[in-house]
């Protein structure tokens, strides 16, 4: 959900710039003695949030060389009854870090897994990504970047518990061992972690710890049920939308029909007359536009109030994009010279004995997370608290501070469990967070000094912008009779998702947005010239689960299949030959999917065909072998077998879920109705009736297989998406004899 190639040394600098006057690391001088008493879960618990630790620190406490992200006090609380509560430094929005990160910490803590719980964190410095230096959830980075961090946190907490037991029993800590939440001493003496926690918290935090040999892991690697499985199967899990404070009001906003448009006139008399409506405000909204917020006792009166507004919009100053004209413009642009990402010599192109010339079209796509966007804001004096399911609490805090005219460190973001996101909760402009702050500010000015929850409707979500950009690809490939590519001339046209954001300065080089081309050519050693055009249009765009690979994988994997097919080669053997010895993870993933699917051994029923695709994104390789057919003129996916190489599988059960889920989202791109289009500047779709997503009746039989590995883990949130659509398309092309070059699929 964000690019893989961000140079981690640069992001903090950019963020620093963004946060300007922030002195950010208020907790950088955390005391060594940082386990403090906190009345928390079930009474007295071990550990405290760093801001509390900071407040209670004694001047004499020696400063630790450890960063806030390395101190157990912010991450692990052990209650007297032995319950271990692990705080996660990410947004949990379905991907399972709320279980995976505690598994990693519990492994080194040697906790009793049945007593492990988890909770969400805040924008506090302790919860910054240790690589990127900000609270961030994206790019399939959570497990990858916090694997060592959470191991060390667990190991430090365990060492402190051992020291506490050693002191209590007056023995050398080296004579002690631990077993599932218990310290065991000489002569079989035992003490539970809960009994030791209070003494342990008074001890210094060790800076150096020894980590387990992975062969001794007993929690990591076990298929483990989610910690929130029960709450999420009984309506008892709260999400951001469920936050409720005394006196809280709900706001809905009438936004401009064309992005960035302003109000010509407002008649809110009927809206104000709706029972339950408390106030109506004109507010600035994203992209320079204006909107009208209706604040009421609940969502329903707020919505009725909005329906009763009589608004006239001035759209004269904003571009009104029209998808059909846009396509013509993109086609023309693809013929123009432009900046080149790759610059191979194309002299062999004209002389090549075989050619493919192809044009690919990809529409705008909405993320449509099931929980509509929302943010609750409470203002008090010159500080603010936000409750929001966000992938980017750091950016949001800075944006909220700017909107409210306060300092970033005066904004506390309570990260809430979120009902999906897929990239939509990580927006450079923090659009819905800023909107919520504008409403809270207007309400306070009007004397309504109460917490306000902004809630978007589904229509607001589908029409409200930030889409995976529309793209056009053109390819001209010359190859020989054995399928060897001699020259490949390729052009991509699409809006940059990073130009104009804080990421532009280090992610857009020589006019090319790195996210637009990721997945092109890799890992294949191909003589490619790649030209890129980034037109600017009045449609807000954003990463969407798996970012550039949502389109590049489709283009690469269907074109290579085309070449294999047209030269009479098996698509698996053809790819294996291209991988050669250089890409063993690709080979292993594909081989596993082939072996488990029965490809090459099983004869499919008449009318069905195999399809294959492999793609690496976010350092994880996923291969699919699928079975598909055409029924009543529509492509149907019957079976999908995945081979996954993500290095060490922390929670195989969660990985299976992520690959399946990403595959369903990949499938979503193929089905009729998976397109956002604009007419006269207005988005034409509005809800799940016209922006359609897969239902259970669209879903194939699934099998996910993981290549065994002990290497440090990579992410799995996104990599299951990119190869699904091309594998499906390749199967359909075998059946129809015609390659599919447009998403959603169109066999006409």
């Amino acid at each position: 959900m964000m690019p893989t190639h961000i140079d981690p040394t640069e992001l903090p600098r950019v963020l620093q710039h963004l946060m300007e006057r922030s002195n950010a690391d208020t907790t950088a001088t955390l005391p060594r003695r940082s386990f403090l008493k906190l009345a928390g879960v079930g009474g007295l618990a071990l550990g405290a949030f760093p801001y509390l630790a900071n407040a209670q620190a004694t001047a004499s406490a020696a400063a630790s060389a450890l960063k806030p992200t390395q101190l157990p006090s912010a991450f692990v609380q052990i209650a007297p009854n032995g319950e271990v509560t692990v705080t996660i430094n990410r947004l949990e929005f379905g991907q399972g870090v709320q279980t995976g990160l505690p598994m990693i910490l519990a492994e080194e803590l040697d906790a009793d897994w049945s007593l492990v719980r988890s909770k969400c964190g805040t924008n506090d410095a302790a919860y910054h990504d240790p690589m990127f230096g900000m609270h961030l959830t994206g790019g399939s980075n959570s497990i990858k970047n916090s694997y060592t961090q959470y191991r060390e946190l667990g190991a430090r907490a365990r060492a402190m518990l051992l020291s506490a037991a050693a002191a209590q029993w007056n023995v050398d800590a080296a004579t002690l061992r631990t077993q599932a939440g218990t310290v065991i001493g000489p002569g079989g003496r035992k003490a539970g972690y809960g009994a030791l926690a209070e003494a342990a918290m008074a001890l210094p935090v060790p800076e150096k710890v020894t980590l387990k040999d992975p062969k001794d892991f007993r929690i990591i690697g076990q298929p483990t049920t989610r910690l929130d499985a029960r709450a999420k199967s009984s309506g008892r899990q709260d999400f951001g939308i469920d936050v409720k404070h005394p006196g809280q009001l709900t706001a809905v906003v009438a936004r401009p029909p064309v992005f960035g448009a302003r109000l010509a006139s407002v008649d809110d008399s009927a809206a104000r007359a709706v029972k339950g409506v408390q106030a109506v405000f004109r507010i600035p909204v994203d992209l320079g536009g204006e909107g009208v917020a209706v604040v009421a006792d609940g969502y329903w009166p707020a919505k009725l109030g909005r329906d009763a507004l009589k608004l006239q919009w001035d759209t004269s100053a904003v571009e009104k994009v029209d998808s059909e004209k846009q396509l013509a413009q993109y086609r023309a642009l693809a013929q123009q010279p432009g900046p080149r990402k790759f610059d191979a010599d194309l002299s062999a192109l004209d002389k090549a004995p075989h050619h493919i010339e192809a044009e690919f079209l990809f529409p705008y796509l909405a993320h449509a997370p099931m929980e509509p966007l929302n943010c609750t804001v409470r203002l008090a004096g010159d500080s603010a608290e936000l409750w929001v399911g966000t992938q980017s609490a750091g950016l949001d805090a800075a944006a909220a501070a700017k909107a409210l005219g306060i300092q970033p460190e005066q904004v506390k973001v309570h990260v809430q469990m979120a009902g999906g996101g897929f990239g939509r909760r990580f927006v450079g402009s923090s659009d819905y967070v800023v909107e919520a702050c504008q409403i809270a500010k207007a309400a306070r000015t009007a004397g309504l000094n109460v917490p306000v929850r902004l809630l978007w409707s589904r229509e607001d979500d589908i029409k409200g912008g930030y889409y995976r950009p529309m793209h056009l690809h053109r390819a001209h490939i010359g190859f020989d009779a054995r399928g060897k590519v001699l020259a490949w001339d390729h052009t991509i046209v699409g809006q940059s998702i990073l130009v104009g954001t804080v990421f532009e300065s280090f992610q857009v080089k020589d006019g090319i947005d790195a996210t637009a081309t990721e997945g092109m050519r890799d890992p294949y050693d191909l003589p490619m010239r790649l030209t890129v055009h980034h037109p600017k249009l009045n449609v807000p765009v954003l990463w969407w689960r798996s970012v550039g690979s949502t389109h590049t994988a489709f283009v690469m994997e269907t074109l290579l299949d085309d070449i294999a097919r047209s030269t009479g080669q098996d698509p698996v053997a053809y790819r294996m030959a291209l991988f050669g010895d250089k890409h063993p993870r690709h080979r292993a993933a594909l081989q596993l999917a082939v072996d488990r699917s029965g490809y090459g051994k099983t004869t499919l029923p008449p009318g069905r065909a195999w399809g294959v695709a492999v793609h690496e994104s976010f350092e994880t390789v996923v291969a699919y072998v699928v079975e598909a057919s055409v029924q009543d003129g529509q492509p149907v996916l019957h079976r999908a077998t995945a081979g996954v190489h993500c290095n060490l599988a922390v929670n195989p059960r969660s990985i299976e879920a992520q690959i399946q889920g990403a595959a369903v989202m990949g499938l979503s791109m193929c089905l009729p109705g998976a397109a956002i289009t604009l007419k006269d500047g207005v988005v034409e779709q509005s809800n799940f009736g016209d922006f359609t997503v897969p239902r259970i009746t669209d879903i194939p039989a699934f099998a996910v297989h993981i290549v065994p590995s002990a290497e440090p883990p990579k992410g799995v949130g996104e990599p299951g998406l990119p190869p699904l659509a091309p594998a499906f398309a390749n199967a359909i092309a075998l059946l129809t004899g015609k390659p599919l070059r447009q998403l959603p699929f169109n066999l006409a």
Partner: protein
Amino acid sequence: MPTLHINGRDLTVDTDPGTPILWALRDTLGMTGTKFGCGAALCGACTVHLDGQAIRSCITPISAAEGKKIKTIEATTDGSDRVGAAVHAAWVQHDVAQCGYCQSGQIMSATAFLQSQPKGKQPTAAEIDAAMAGNICRCGTYARIRAAVADAAKALA
């Protein structure tokens, strides 16, 4: 003031009779287990039972519930409902939820479906798909939903 019969209790809500059941539950009564997904009966996240039938609470006004029994996810999975308990157990067993936001609605649809099955009859895969087709899961947990509904049916046999 309208009185609603919810999960075995009579509750008075000071709300306009046109208010959808969803918002009476969530905003007036503070029962947030029932979720808002689309507001247009397209996604199923708001599913509750009205006299045992799965309905979309986002488009059903409270006036339509007068004299009828509303059952929500809270009471369906608190152990008091035999079918609901089996569905809840199967959901945990199969680790169905990802973000979990749609799962209240999924479970309410699955429970109504299994309650409607003749005793001893095991639903076919196609029947399970048809029964669950009104509920969207954007995380794509469908494969596990299928397995969980089938297992709950077995457990109830």
